[in-house]
């Protein structure tokens, strides 16, 4: 293939992954709401309801607090932009994503961190008590989740001798026993805890609370309206989808396209959608039967995640 064709192909793959993550992310939220309402004995909104909500939000008026600076408006934009970048470079549908060679797990974590930092700054720019409360809590939890995350990455990277995500996924395809290795499983276990914390799900944060004092993530976005809020909703759903996508691809990589070609990519997208949907349903079911932790019990949960990651690292060292 010529260079031009390569570029076109890469562009197509990138586009496919972006569309899947953005639209699919909103649908994922819809699915999770549907599961919740079923378990609560309700019919619940249709699965495409989040799409309708976002479409409407984009047609509404933007509102900024009087004293806010450009940072307030930049928050949601950067949130979505980081999610888009991660959607392009991470191995979701194929193990050969554009820029895949530099799709380092470490890099992806810090790109996502940029998104959450920008949202936290936007929240502080509102000049309201709620904004500060939300961003303080979110940043604290993020800071405590960080060690677990990086040690988990380390534990997964020791056997593979690299922290490059496509390679990690490909290794899972090549050597299934590497997935069953306790290092990988423990690391992914702590990764699950981190996903719950980072994406503000129960038991860390209640996404459907109306009481400001119990809010973590919701308190940061109370001030956003119209398109800004639409971007926040979009960005958050994309982040959840990305994290779950990475999780499932590291846990059950089968279906991911390992060779170029439209057909395998399409299969990969389908497999991704199926796996992520299952993960989402699992989380939603778990949420129905779980109560929110007290804010100061959250460190216990994250410390547990950290210990899982450390045990993973040690087992990786033991069996190396």
């Amino acid at each position: 293939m010529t260079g031009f064709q390569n570029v076109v192909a890469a562009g197509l793959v990138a586009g496919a992954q972006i569309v899947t993550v953005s639209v699919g992310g909103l649908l994922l939220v819809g699915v999770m709401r549907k599961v919740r309402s079923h378990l609560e004995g309700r019919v619940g909104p249709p699965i495409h309801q989040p799409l309708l909500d976002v479409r409407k939000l984009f047609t509404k008026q933007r509102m900024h607090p009087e004293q806010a600076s450009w940072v307030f408006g930049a928050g949601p934009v950067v949130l979505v932009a980081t999610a888009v970048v991660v959607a392009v470079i991470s191995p979701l549908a194929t193990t050969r994503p554009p820029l895949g060679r530099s799709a380092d797990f470490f890099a992806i974590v810090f790109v996502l961190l940029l998104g959450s930092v920008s949202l936290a700054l936007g929240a502080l720019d509102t000049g309201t008590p709620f904004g500060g409360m939300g961003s303080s809590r979110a940043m604290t939890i993020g800071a405590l989740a960080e060690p677990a995350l990086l040690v988990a990455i380390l534990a997964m990277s020791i056997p593979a001798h690299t922290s490059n995500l496509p390679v990690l996924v490909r290794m899972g395809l090549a050597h299934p026993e590497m997935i069953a290795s306790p290092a990988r499983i423990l690391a992914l276990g702590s990764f699950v805890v981190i996903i719950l914390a980072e994406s503000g799900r129960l038991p860390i944060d209640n996404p459907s609370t109306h009481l400001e004092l119990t809010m973590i993530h919701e308190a940061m976005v109370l001030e956003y309206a119209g398109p800004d809020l639409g971007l926040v909703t979009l960005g958050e759903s994309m982040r959840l989808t990305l994290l779950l996508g990475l999780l499932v691809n590291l846990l059950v990589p089968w279906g991911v396209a390992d060779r170029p070609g439209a057909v395998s990519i399409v299969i990969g997208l389908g497999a991704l959608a199926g796996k992520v949907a299952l993960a989402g349903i699992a989380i939603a079911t778990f949420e129905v039967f779980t109560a929110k932790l007290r804010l100061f019990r959250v460190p216990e949960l994250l410390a547990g995640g950290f210990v899982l990651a450390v045990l993973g690292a040690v087992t990786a060292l033991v069996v190396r």
Partner: protein
Amino acid sequence: MSNVSLVITAAAGSIAAIAGGALPAKTRVWAAVVLTWGSCIAALVGALAVLHTGQSSVLNSSQILPLTGVTMVLDPLGAVFVVVTAVVAIASTLYWLGYASHGLSTRTASAALPLFVTSMLLVPAAASVATFLVLWELMALASLMLVLVDQRRREETRSAAQWYAVMTHVGAAAILFALVLLSAHAGDQTFAAIRVHAHHLPTAVRNTAFVLAVLGFGSKAGAVPLHVWLPKAHPEAPSPVSALMSGAMVNLGIYGIVLVGDRLLGGGPVWWWLMVTALGVVSALFGALHAATSTDLKRLLAYSTADNMGLVLIGVGASGMFAASGHRAIASIAMVAALLLTVNHAAFKGSLFLSAGSVQVATGTRDLDRLGGLMRRMPITGAVFMVGALSIAALPPFNGFVGEWLLFQSLLHGLPTSSTAVAIAVPVGVAALALTGGLTAVAFVKAIGVGFLGRPRSEEAAAAHEVPRTMQMGAGMLAGLCVVLGLVPVIVLPALGRAAASAVPGTPATTLSGSVDLHLAGLQGVLAPALLAAGLALATGAVIALRQLARRRFTPQPALRRAEPWGSGRELQTARMQYTATSFAEPLERVFDDVVRPDRDLDVSHVSESRYYVEKVTYWTSIGDLIEQNVYRPVISAVHWWGQRARALQNGSVHRYLAYGLVALVVILAVIT
């Protein structure tokens, strides 16, 4: 030609100092600054030449210093530190031009600042014990004078200066012992001779020398528990001086450890470097935690200096451990990571301290709880601080990210091939790196969000407006460097590779390659920071475009409405209801209660009529430095106690003094016979 540049550096620096001391107030500052620039540029040229060719430049002269003479060798490792110092110095002296009207135009200051800069430029070139120690002391004294500039206005400055003086001289003593010990065994005081004899030294000597050096240089680098002077002196010093101390001087502590450990002693056993790594881990965590919980802007920056130096020490220690277990390539990658972290830290911490100084000039306070809303009032300074903060939080596409990525990669790849002790140390290092990263993000989200965003919390902050151009330019220069280094780190990496090769004996010079991509030689680790940044920019543009396009379908008027922030329909909403820096850090403070030990006090007073009506609630909290309280205070009080006892000996009576003399004489005679 580069030894010529050393001479020019020294000459221009001394002339600058004299000019600053002699000239009248109007021309003083300008003359000193311009001459200092000359000295910096000369040093820059020489150092770049050394880095480009890889050839060290030598300068020997027996006239300048009596008895010993001066020996100077600028090798790639030293050249890196010279370049860093020169760049930071140019930026902060430029800033000084605008800042001078705020108490820095005195003769002392104008004389001391060039002296400080020049001595820092020459320390990495010193190649004999005497030269090194003289320049080191010169640097210490000049910086001490500069810390004391503000003493007339603030009395805290004096105690800070005392702490700084004591710590820096204890450190200097340790360094003196270490170097003298080595030169004594080598029989010659030039570094070259010491290096030759290093391997025939008895182990005890090597160990003593290294430990002493780590203590001495560690105290200069602000390594916990030797950091106590740092959070006192850096905030109290005038901001350009803080920038110089934090951006250039602390680096020389790192340089010293590498110099003694790797260059002079040619590496050592694993436990040396485990010690350094442990020092780094403790400093990183302790510094980051205190940065996240402190509410004084410059104190926050000072603690985060301790934190960043901790990361650098982790890199240095890892490099040493890998070299000791025989993995030269990875050792040199770790050393490159450490050097890159140093360069980055100089860039962003310099810009942060300078813009913090601008905030202090504009509002008259450093207390975050009294700031706010500055982003609209001081847009340039705000943007500069934002860039620095995002870089220090290791967020792409800025330079801090590349450094921490490199450190993580070196740890990751060093792990599987290393011995048990190292294999235990490395995951701990990674965990420390991660927790530090998270806490730093908290600290600087707090610094920006409380200091620059939201609504002003005091009249001073409300009345603030932008500072003079030169100050903006000085800070902006370094912020620009943060961006450049973040996008194309490859412009410095080859030089750093050579420096690492000259530092860690027997390592390949080119461990990192690539123009856009950043490859680790022979390892699976690639990063394309420029592409990542381009992707982010592209995505941001696309998202904004999407937002605008979507709005066209139906546009309510006005498309963007500014309104009172939503406060649950509350009638009255004041700026004091915002989260302050204290409340922002409160959850973290609780989580790490055992480490930071905040002392809180809640005082509720009721109205006289009925105890059911609260009149006033006073909440008071402060966080002291645990190590200062539990380690240094006891020592100080003990010394004080002995001082009191000693006073009993002398009550002014001549007879008693004569009696002491007689007793002493008798004792001596008794001993002799």
